[in-house]
């Protein structure tokens, strides 16, 4: 955990309202070592172009197409670390998100301790080097 406020991890949350229960839980979970910005799907690519976030979290339930958004973010900033979160995971959407280049796809949790643990583990993951997989035949 980095105690230096200037060196805190930077997180961008997409597809959530700033005051939603999960956005608040996320802020509280990482408060000691991270700061969370919130943006809409429409603001996403401009936000990552402006700033190199340590982690971009895409709420699959709040965006039109999570996998397409992951591809767009990677096109804007190759090497960016993106993870998709969802309240109702399915294997097909997990596959789409991971094939698009997200480093993880995980179930939302309001448990601050569990949430902090998973965000810490996701921050340690290496963004894929290969391009996003194309559309299925």
């Amino acid at each position, binding site marked *: 955990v980095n105690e230096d406020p200037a060196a805190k991890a930077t997180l961008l949350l997409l597809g959530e309202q700033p005051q939603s229960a999960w956005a608040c839980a996320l802020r509280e979970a990482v408060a000691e070592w991270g700061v969370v910005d919130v943006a809409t799907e429409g603001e996403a690519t401009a936000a990552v172009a402006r700033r190199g976030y340590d982690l971009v979290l895409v709420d699959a339930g709040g965006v039109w197409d999570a996998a397409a958004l992951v591809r767009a973010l990677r096109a804007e900033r190759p090497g960016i670390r993106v993870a998709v979160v969802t309240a109702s*995971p*399915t*294997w*097909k959407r*997990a*596959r789409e998100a*991971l*094939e698009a280049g*997200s*480093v*993880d*796809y*995980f179930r939302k949790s309001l448990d601050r301790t569990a949430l902090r643990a998973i965000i810490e*583990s*996701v921050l*340690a*993951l*290496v*963004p*894929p*080097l*290969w*391009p996003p*997989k*194309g559309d*299925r*035949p």
Partner: protein
Amino acid sequence: MKSILLADNEPDFLAVRVQFLERAGYRVYTAGSPAEAQRLLSDLRLHVAILDIRLVDDDDDKDTSGLTLAKDPAYRLVPKIILTQHPTFDAVREALGPVLDGLPPAVAFLEKKEGVEEMLHAIEWALAHHLRLNWDLAVHWDPQGRLGFLALANALSDGLPTELLVQRAGELEDLFRKLFYEARQIRIGRLLWHGGGRLCMPVWAQSPQGATDQRLLVCGTRDALTEETTRLRRLAPSTQSGVRLESTAETVHFSAVVYSLPDADLETVQPLRDLFLGGSERRVRPAFAHLVQEVLRAWHQHGRTVAEGGDLIALYRQRAGLAERGLPRAEVERRVQVLLQAARCLGPVEMEGDGAQLTFRFPQESRLVCPDPVATV
């Protein structure tokens, strides 16, 4: 020909898929159990492995043997496609995510009922983006060198049965196609040296634009090469004139490293050992002078600083762990006396110590006087 392993414990499914894959131009090996799949992954030159999650019992939701095999670090360089009749969110996440060292356990995840087209698409994707072999690379061997991939495999994997040696030779060919991914053609020169699970040869690589780079290639077993590159990255000087590591590549059994030697002519370069054994003094002397004064100097200065006014004895005591926990004088005196008494039984030598000197009197010889260690405490 591109080789694929298809592992599934359902013989009918295997038979049908093999037909489609062979019709698409692939050589297909099949396995019906985890053990068989593991043996083929270890023995064969494979470009993609397709593994069913439940390789033991289709009705057992605890059976994740295919996924376990996909995670085995020994085969991490073979792109794997996970296949299942029972897809779940957790299985997808386990197979395709999280990437810890740059590679996930699998590169694609398929439900069995998705069909052959989807499988072929996943194979093509894996070959193009995860295996990355230069299939169009033209490889030319120096006619004087009498080398070939089979000869190299034999040199590195001595004692293997012929059928496995052929697989290793194919794997070495893949290694070169991986290493020279951007090149149009390469010419491989004579073997410069061979030993310790490694061998070395010059390679000239021509780009699609026609530019030729001369490189020194060392390839060998993965363990031997890992040791070499680890040492090189830790110890090599960052001088511009010396040997530079340009690229590396790995397969299941082999690794290779490509170096550039900016000042060398690789047509005439030879190992120092050969020069020493067969060269005249006129040629050997300047080579050794260069080795000691230029090459080794740079290596030994790497990461070191010169400290003025240092005390060599103090440094020795510090490195030997004597600086802070030296023995008390009384203990040293006791130990010296014990040594003297023990030495008396070795022969007719008279010994005495006075705290400053130890004197040894040998029969019919002059006496030997040494400083008493006690005096140095």
